[in-house]
């Protein structure tokens, strides 16, 4: 039977330790990205993922060019965290707004990265792996580092959830009533930076933004509360990652691209459901006040 064959195939797939590693790291990163994504999309910082990943790319290129050890994440993480704080500062304190600030940092670090690569190692598989993503190259140390960082990100997100909502919804009010909004913004930037660096290995610098943006946008089609959007994003992100990674192994396509395509499909399905629901009035009935509306 088709289903059974697919299932046993799946089981066999997970016998490989490197696939287990990929799935664990990938699932955790997808969760982190989805949780933070809601806030970033709503703060109009959707492209921060792509910007920071270019910084990560430049720092990884430097790390490999100058042979800075076997765990390039150790170089990339502090650099990207710094870049995230810088980004925040630029768009807060001056007349350069969020999206332009991201473009500035993003393109300049891409330029630096390409110059470093061209003048040292040249375009090799290592570089390609950074651009398009591959987990196969991850060392055990990187895997453990990624797992612990993801757990830290998820924990901090849960602890700061209410504050993140407040600064995302209305920063002025939060500041006016005495919340330290600067610190909470820095926490968001810090968590984002870590998520991006860890996620880059899987998705590649070109596609990492999708991990941040898609789940949030997808769940915003149907859910209308911050809490449900957040939970729905996490679920959507995890499911899409899982389907994407299985498709990637079965059809031998890059994992990052495969996950993005599944994300696109989910977005289209959610949009269609929302449109049909509104058009037919079904939405009000099913998701209306009395029933599911309490939860959605």
């Amino acid at each position: 039977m088709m289903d059974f064959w697919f299932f046993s195939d799946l089981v066999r797939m997970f016998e490989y330790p490197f696939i287990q590693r990929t799935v664990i790291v990938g699932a955790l990163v997808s969760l982190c990205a989805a949780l933070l994504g809601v806030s970033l999309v709503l703060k109009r910082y959707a492209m921060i993922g792509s910007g920071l990943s270019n910084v990560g790319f430049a720092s990884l290129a430097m790390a490999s060019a100058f042979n800075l050890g076997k765990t390039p994440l150790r170089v990339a993480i502090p650099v990207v965290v710094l870049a995230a704080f810088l980004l925040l500062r630029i768009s807060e304190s001056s007349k350069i707004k969020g999206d332009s600030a991201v473009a500035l940092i993003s393109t300049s670090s891409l330029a630096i990265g390409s110059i470093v690569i061209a003048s040292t190692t040249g375009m090799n598989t290592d570089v390609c792996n950074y651009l398009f993503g591959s987990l196969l190259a991850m060392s055990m140390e990187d895997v453990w580092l990624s797992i612990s960082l993801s757990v830290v990100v998820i924990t901090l997100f849960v602890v700061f959830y209410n504050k993140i909502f407040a600064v995302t919804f209305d920063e002025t009010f939060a500041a006016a009533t005495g919340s330290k909004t600067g610190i909470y913004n820095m926490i968001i930037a810090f968590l984002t930076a870590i998520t991006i660096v860890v996620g880059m290995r899987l998705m590649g610098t070109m596609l990492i933004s999708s991990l941040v943006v898609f789940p949030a946008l997808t769940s915003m089609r149907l859910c209308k509360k911050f809490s449900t959007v957040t939970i729905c994003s996490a679920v959507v992100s995890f499911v899409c990652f899982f389907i994407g990674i299985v498709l990637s192994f079965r059809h031998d396509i890059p994992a990052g691209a495969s996950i993005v395509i599944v994300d696109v499909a989910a977005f289209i399905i959610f949009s269609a459901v929302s449109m049909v629901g509104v058009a037919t009035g079904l939405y009000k009935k099913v998701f209306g006040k009395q029933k599911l509306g309490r939860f959605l």
Partner: protein
Amino acid sequence: MALLTCENAAFAYDGKLCVEGLNFEVNAGDYLCIVGENGSGKSTLIKGILNLKQPVSGRVYAGDNLHVTEIGYLPQQTAVSKDFPASVFEVVLSGRLNSRGLLPFYSKRDKEIANENISKLKIENLRNECYRELSGGQQQRALLARALCATKKLLLLDEPTSGLDPAASNELYGIIRQLNRENKITIIMVSHDIHGAIGFASHILHLRSRQLFYGTKEDYINSEAGKKFLRRAGEDDGFLVF
């Protein structure tokens, strides 16, 4: 001691003076209405009171029994994006954040307070609705409920009725008066809608890049600045209120 005192304060943007010579005090139970034309520095003063902006000279300070985290605020414009998903309850509850300090989650009591304020503003039926899908008046009520969650003492309202139709404005003014009279909440309200606003006020502060008048409403109506301003506002509206 006064709840709030402003001593010869002046505010500037990028070194350019915007409003100066501010001298007034607000006592518990007052209802102060700040009037003046657009660009006269009303919102700037509100930000100064909230400590979001520091005065370039003079000072603004709160009395002994008022802490920054005990001020409720209704911003002039809440730049909430069109697609922001949040229920009315989530928005109102977020007003309790300042009282949480470093604690991560809201307590049962916080949720009770949020529900009480939702009832006070008669928006129980909107509790689980999506904030962005409400009408302007309903949104202002939700934001007022949020502000009430943040304070029992002082509410700062910056043009709370801009963008509302006259009926919704009057309702909102009614609620604000009730909060002032029955719940003993001190009100500082900015408005350029002179007759709706001044009606319930106890004190008036008139700004035009500096302080033109500060005093009780009765004195204001008889003052030079007040007469001029009220006459002009009356002409604009086609009728006189006082």
